[in-house]
C-alpha cells in the first residue's frame, strides 16, 4: 500500500544534509532501531539561528525523506521558528505521505526539538557557569 510522492522519492534518492557533525553545538535523537527507525539531528547555532543542520538516519524511505525535509525547513530559521515546525508542515512539504508512514514524519520533528532543547540546556548550563 506504499505509494510515495515524487517529492518523497526525490529527497529519498538525494537526501539533503545527510552527514554526521561530530563538533555540533547540539544534537537530538529519536526513534528506536528495534522499531526500524533511528534518527540523530545535529545543529550548529549562531545568533539564535540554525546555521547548519545535518543528521544520520536509519529507516525507511519515508523516514529518510522526512529527515531530509526537516533539515531543509529548519536551516536558517531562528530556534523559536524551528520549534514551530510541525509534522504537518513536513508532510505538506513532501506532497503527502502514505497513511501508515505518517509516524515517520514525527521522527524528524521530535529529533529537531530535542536538538534545540539540548542546545538550550547546554547554553543555560554555560550561563550558569559564567
Amino acid at each position: 500500500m506504499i505509494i510515495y510522492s515524487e517529492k518523497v522519492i526525490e529527497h529519498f534518492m538525494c537526501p539533503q544534509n545527510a552527514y554526521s557533525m561530530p563538533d555540533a553545538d547540539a544534537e537530538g535523537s529519536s526513534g528506536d532501531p528495534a522499531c526500524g527507525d533511528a534518527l540523530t539531528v545535529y545543529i550548529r547555532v549562531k545568533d539564535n539561528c540554525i546555521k547548519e543542520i545535518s543528521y544520520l538516519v536509519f529507516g525507511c524511505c519515508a523516514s529518510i525523506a522526512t529527515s531530509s525535509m526537516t533539515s531543509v525547513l529548519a536551516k536558517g530559521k531562528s530556534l523559536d521558528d524551528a520549534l514551530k515546525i510541525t509534522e504537518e508542515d513536513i508532510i505538506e512539504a513532501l506532497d503527502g505521505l502514505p497513511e501508515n508512514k505518517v509516524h515517520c514524519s514525527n521522527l524528524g520533528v521530535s529529533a529537531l526539538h530535542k536538538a534545540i532543547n539540548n542546545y538550550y540546556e547546554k547554553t543555560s548550563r554555560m550561563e550558569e557557569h559564567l
Partner: protein
Amino acid sequence: MRKVYFDHSATTPVDPAVVEEMMKYLTEHFGNPSSIHAFGREARKAVEKARQQVATAIGASSVGEIAFTGTGTEADNMAIRGVAYANRQKGNHIITTAGEHSAVLNCCKQLEREGFSVTVLPLDQYGRVTAQQVADAITDKTILISILHANNEIGTIMPIKEISEVARSKKIIFHTDAVQSVGKIPVNVDDLGVDLLTLSGHKIYGPKGIGAMYIRRGTFWQPILFGGGQERRRRPGTENVAGIVGLGKAVELATERMQADAERLTRYRDRIISEVLQKIPNTILTGHPEERLPNHVSFCFRFIEGESMLLMLDMKGIAISSGSACTSGSLEPSHVLTAIGLSKEVAHGSLRLTMGKDNTEEDVEYFLEALPPIIERLRAMSPLSEG
C-alpha cells in the same frame, strides 16, 4: 533501464502457455461447470483435467483428493481449521513452528482463541525444527501437525519426511504448506508422507486467486465455507474455471521444468551468496546454507533498513523484497527472522532475492554491481554504523 525481477517468492509472471490455456475459458468456453448443458460440460471437462494435472504433479493417488480454492491462504485455512474442527472430539492440541506463513500462524492463533491449544516449535538458527522436537511436543490430545515445506522468507527446507514419520507412527494428521516448494524441489505426497498439502497458483507461473488443497482419502475433515455442493462439497462457490485451468497447466509445466531450472538457479544462488558475503562486510546469510530453495537468497545487512535498500534497488530496475516491518509501516519485523535469533534491529535490514525461470546470468551480474554502492550509501548515513 534494465528490469530484473528477483521477487518470485512474492509472485511470478504468468507463463504465456498458461495464459493461452486460460484465455479459452475466459472467452468461448465460459460455462458454469455445474450446468449440464454443453457450455457447462465443456467447463467441467477443463476443471477435471486440471484436477488430474495437479494430482499427477504431486503424486496424489486419486483426483478426488484435490480441491481447488481461491488462494493458498484459503487452502491453509481449510486444511488446518477443517481438520481441527472435525477432530475436536479427539483432542484440541496442534503443533506448528515459528517459521510458518501468517496464513498458518494466524489460523492457529484463531484456534487458540476458540479453545484449542497450540505448540509453536522454536526454530534453530537456520530455520529448521527436528523430528525429535516434534516427537517431544506430541501429547495424547494432539490432532494435527502443520509444518511448512520450504520457508518463503529464508528459503530453508524442512525435514518433512522425518517429521511425518513421527506423525504417522502416532496416527496424527500431518499438513504441509508447499506453496513455496512446488515446482522448485520434488513434492510428492507419498514421499513426504503428508495427509494434507496446500499450493498456490501464482507462485508457480500460474494466475493469482487460485490455490489447491490436497487431502488424503480417509482424512477426517470438514469444510470451512458453506454454500453449494461444488468441489465434492469441500469448497462451495462457482469454480474459477480459467484460474483452475491455469493452475493445472502451471503445475504441469513447473514439474517438467523443475530439474533444469533448479540446477541453473542453484549456480546463480551460490554465486550471489559467496560474492555478497565476501564483498559486503557485516552481512548475515539467513536461512540454511545448503538445505534451501535453489532460487532463494536472503541476507541481513547490519545498520541499514530494508525498505530503503529495496527502493534504491527498485530505482535501478531491480525488484526484490525485504522482511522489514517498514515495508508495511508496522513496527514488528518479520517473525521468521526474529525466530532464527536475529535482533529486531538486524532483522530490519533484511533482503530477499528469489530468482525465476527467466532470470539470466546478466541479471545476476547487474545485481552484484548495483548492490554494494547502495549498501555503502545507506550505511554512510546511518547513525548505527558509527557505533
